[in-house]
């Protein structure tokens, strides 16, 4: 190892990440020590990396972080991720941010401070490309001097911020590509909380647990939209059809409008959601390039509705991976399986139940017959609900039924996944 140049050793140590491992490696010889001091680009203090942090007091952790950071020059990535029992004092946190501000590109920070430190004010803004903040407060954003010209990834989790500051912050990031807003405590200035975001660079957005009634998102280049645990009156996406991935999980929304954005969709994943099938179908019907569709634990708004497989097969001819998991209502299955258009390209099929019924077997047969090129079938089931003798009998019957059925489809790989 003597021949490796010191900057190469620095590169290796920069990929180690965990601060304790870096410190230990820097003690092997002079060259590695020098590499650590002059060429280290990345440091991570994460209580999940090393158990030892749990036995240290908050001030001991502050000291070791300070000493380790101050041994480096030119740190580009800094990650501080501790258990939420810790609360750092403001002074060392400010010192770390000031020491690294000229070179830092990525910052992850999740520890509360007392008194509160406004991270955005202290960190280097000129080079920052990624900022992930947890458990902090953002206030008094002033876009006239607080600008983040190179910021591409912004993630705010459990952050207190006012609606005004959020929109100012967003405006201060002209090149943003990935945005995560998770569990924000937003202080609203008006009675009807609504959020409007507009960006031509945004590619991916994840919105979770926001206390907001309306979201209007104008993003011409958005490729990935993920909505999670939201209760909305309105969600509107204004775009130019760049959307590829749409994921909606545990969302209640009165008006969902992604109108003209569906034609390039490749993957749609909807779970724990109430679907109005005609409306949903109308929205998705232009997504002729869809390759993956997952409808899981969905409820239909109208009791008479069911996923209409005929229209699904016709509309999405390129579908390769289809996952359907919802409770079958008596008498509706026949209607759902009507028609004969095959899922020509489906290679993987996943089917599941929450409460097992006799109809499930029929659904499996109906589906497997419609997928002539199927390679893999996965059956998902919930077993904790199987309590009565009748239910156990249903499960036993279904198992025997599957054994018989699969003799006919020996080329299909069958998997069971029971919860």
């Amino acid at each position: 190892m003597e021949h490796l140049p010191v900057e190469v050793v620095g590169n290796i140590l920069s990929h180690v990440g965990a601060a304790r491992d870096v410190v230990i490696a820097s003690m092997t010889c002079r060259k590695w020590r020098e590499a650590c001091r002059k060429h280290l680009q990345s440091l991570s203090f994460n209580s999940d990396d090393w158990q030892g942090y749990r036995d240290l007091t908050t001030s001991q952790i502050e000291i070791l972080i300070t000493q380790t950071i101050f041994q480096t020059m030119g740190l580009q990535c800094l990650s501080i991720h501790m258990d939420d029992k810790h609360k750092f004092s403001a002074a060392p946190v400010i010192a770390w941010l000031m020491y690294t501000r000229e070179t830092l590109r990525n910052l992850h920070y999740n520890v509360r401070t007392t008194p509160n430190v406004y991270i955005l004010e202290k960190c280097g803004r000129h080079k920052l490309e990624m900022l992930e903040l947890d458990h902090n407060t953002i206030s008094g954003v002033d876009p006239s001097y607080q600008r983040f010209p190179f910021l591409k990834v912004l993630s705010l989790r459990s952050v207190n911020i006012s609606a005004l500051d959020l929109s100012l912050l967003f405006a201060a990031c002209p090149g943003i590509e990935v945005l995560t807003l998770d569990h924000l405590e937003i202080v609203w200035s008006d009675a009807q909380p609504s959020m409007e975001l507009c960006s031509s660079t945004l590619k991916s957005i994840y919105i979770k647990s926001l206390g907001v009634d309306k979201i209007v998102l104008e993003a011409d280049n958005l490729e990935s939209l993920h909505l999670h645990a939201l209760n909305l009156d309105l969600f509107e996406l204004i775009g130019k059809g760049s959307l590829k991935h749409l994921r909606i999980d545990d969302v209640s929304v009165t008006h969902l409008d992604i109108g003209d954005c569906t034609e390039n969709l490749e993957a749609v994943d909807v779970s724990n959601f109430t679907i109005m099938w005609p409306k949903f179908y109308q929205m998705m019907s232009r997504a002729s390039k869809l390759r993956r569709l997952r409808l899981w634990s969905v409820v239909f708004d109208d009791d008479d509705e069911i996923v209409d497989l005929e229209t699904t097969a016709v509309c999405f001819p390129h579908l390769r991976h289809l996952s359907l998991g919802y409770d079958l209502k008596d008498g509706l299955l026949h209607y759902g399986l009507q028609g004969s258009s095959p899922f020509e390209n489906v290679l993987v099929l996943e089917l599941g139940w929450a409460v097992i019924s006799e109809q499930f077997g029929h659904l499996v047969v109906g589906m497997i017959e419609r997928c002539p090129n199927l390679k893999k079938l996965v059956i998902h089931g919930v077993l904790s609900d199987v309590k009565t003798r009748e239910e156990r009998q249903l499960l036993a019957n279904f198992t025997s039924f599957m054994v018989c059925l699969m003799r006919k489809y020996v080329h299909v790989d069958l998997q069971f996944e029971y919860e």
Partner: protein
Amino acid sequence: MATIITKEQQEKEKMVTLVSSDSEKFVVEQKVAEKSHVIKMVMNCCGIESPIPVRRVKGDILKSILEYCEKHSKGEAQEVMEKWDKEYMDKAEKDLVFFHDLMLASHFLHIQELVDLIAVTFAGMLKMKSPEEIRQKFNINNDLTKEQEEHIMTTFGWAFQPI
């Protein structure tokens, strides 16, 4: 027909010969050799007609590096590449001398993505070890002075606490 021949000729013209330090010859496509920033610069200034000597890299290492460059010039799907990279690294890390030479050569040839790939694998080997274990594994001579060691122990004593 005529257009096909021209195309083939063009393809032929894009081949370049690289010669390792132990005089082994490798004929590869220009776009493969271009993965090395250093070779790319040499090709830009000297052309590709005459063989390019790669003086500091031995044949077995150059062969492995060109295998990597060829795979990475095809523009395959990311998941395919990740799997391939993993297998490539699994094979390389078995022999630490070879692994070390591979790192040195890819640094010398300036193939940044390969340098980073090796660095990630290398970094993985350093996790949860003591300084002595690292020295033994990589055959490193401890040249730190007593004072330096003491300084490290007082500053970073926390990292050496037995848990």
